[in-house]
């Protein structure tokens, strides 16, 4: 029993990472109906940038102090991710606005490959797993259940809280702030939004930046709890995050989080159950869930009502 509860917790932890990434997919799609398939790489670059900060920017005597190292790494990772997103939007996607949908999709693939290669310039052996420091408070909470017990590391608890907290803040931002209204206006009717004096370029860049910052945060936590990072992490988790966004109803903030939690839990629980094939087949079940969703409710959980396109 304790083992399953532990896997459930692990699922929520994985879901939190996926959810932070999924928010970027869903935001950009919600505002300009673009699936930014390079978004997973933004997450990967954020993780490597935070590692670079730890290795090369933070003075060694500060790098061991978690309450300095962690914020510094999150800040730097998110900053690099944001700058990357700005450049990506400006040079890869903006020239293609209004082009057929296939064009930005192919561009995204190109951007992904490009970014992986750029990271390899800085970390030549990046194909292999790269050790990632744990700039977090050590230890955790031990849960006793019947005759079993397990420990939930503080970093994992912090991750879940941060992910859900940021998603809630984002929801609030979109529904209440002036900028959030402008995003919804662009999503609804871009021409009329322009007649309100809204500069679409500015809103779209800002949408990319928000997604990138969340991906940067996810990158640091991912490294922190996996203890290694590699250049494939962006593709893999990007696919999970995209699936989560579709599952929840792309365009919906709440949907991205719920979809991500479902995927995290399905993956870890399926990995625990031998008759489902164990960890070798855990990916399969994610896509089984997705296929069921697409057949029976193609708009996802929150697809119709609660999207950025409100």
């Amino acid at each position, binding site marked *: 029993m304790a083992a399953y509860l532990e896997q459930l917790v692990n699922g929520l932890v994985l879901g939190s990472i996926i959810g932070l990434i999924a928010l970027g997919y869903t935001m950009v799609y919600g505002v300009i109906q673009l699936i930014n398939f390079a978004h997973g790489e933004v997450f990967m670059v954020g993780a490597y940038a935070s590692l670079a900060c730890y290795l090369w920017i933070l003075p060694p005597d500060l790098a061991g102090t978690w309450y300095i190292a962690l914020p510094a790494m999150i800040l730097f990772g998110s900053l690099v991710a944001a700058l990357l997103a700005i450049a990506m939007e400006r040079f890869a996607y903006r020239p293609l606005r209004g082009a057929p949908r296939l064009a930005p999709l192919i561009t995204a693939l190109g951007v992904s490959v490009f970014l992986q290669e750029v990271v390899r310039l800085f970390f030549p052996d990046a194909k292999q797993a790269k050790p990632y420091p744990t700039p977090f408070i050590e230890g955790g909470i031990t849960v006793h259940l019947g005759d079993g017990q397990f420990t939930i590391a503080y970093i994992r608890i912090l991750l879940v809280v941060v992910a859900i907290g940021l998603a809630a803040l984002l929801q609030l931002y979109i529904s209440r702030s002036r900028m959030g209204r402008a995003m919804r206006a662009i999503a609804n009717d871009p021409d009329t939004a322009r007649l*309100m004096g*809204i500069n679409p370029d500015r809103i779209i860049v800002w949408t990319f930046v928000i997604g990138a910052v969340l991906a940067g945060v996810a990158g640091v936590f991912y490294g922190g709890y996996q203890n290694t990072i590699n250049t494939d992490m962006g593709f893999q988790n990007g696919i999970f995050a995209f699936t989560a966004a579709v599952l929840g109803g792309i365009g919906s903030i709440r949907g991205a989080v719920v979809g991500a939690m479902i995927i995290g839990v399905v993956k870890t629980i399926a990995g625990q159950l031998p008759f489902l094939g164990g960890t070798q087949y855990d990916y399969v079940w994610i896509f089984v869930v997705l296929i069921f969703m697409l057949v029976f409710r193609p708009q996802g959980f929150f697809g119709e009502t609660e999207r950025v396109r409100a």
Partner: protein
Amino acid sequence: MSELLEVRGLSVAYGAIEAVRDVSFTVHAGQIVSLIGSNGAGKTTILRTISGLLRPKAGEILFQGTPIHALPAHTVLGMGIAQCPEGRRLFARMTVEENLQLGAYVRRDDGIQADIDKVYDLFPVLGERRHNKAGLFSGGEQQMLAIGRALMCKPRLLMLDEPSMGLSPIMTQRIFDTVAELRDLGTTVLLVEQNALAALALSDQAYVIDLGRTTLHGTGHELLADSRVRAAYLGEEVA
């Protein structure tokens, strides 16, 4: 009398289709100026070009003497030219209040809420249902909201594209009364209408647009009396 807006030799094309050809007209501050003309004459195209949503093929548009025809739409709005577009184009899934807040998007002052309340005074039905989604309102109510939204940026020039479309005669009269009030309060209005009779009666100046060209120009009353206008737009037999 100062010229607020001047359109000179404007031509606009959609690909090979030339929708507006060599159109010129002037809007003086404090007036209501209308553009009338039948379906497909090019009226909406002219307004969209003034707002910066379309680029002219030839000609120029001057606002207070400054060329604006190469500026992006958000800059044009920032200079004080608001448009209430054809078909209202409300943000249907947002509330009345959010639509009005979007109208005030470029403003940074703290008088926005007071101006929203003014719109509610002007159109009480909007105030009573301020938290309802705009898409749930009737056509006339939506038109009020669309006008209110365009007023929220405190425009120097308000452009209205067929505000009477789909409205009952009573509602149309209310909208036109409101337009006259706005002019009396100092807003300059460029009005596009199919309802030529009501528009001309209200207008200080009017232009007839036909097949993308300006064909006639005069005061509202002159055009109301013009036999060609009466024949073409008011459905009378030519004497």
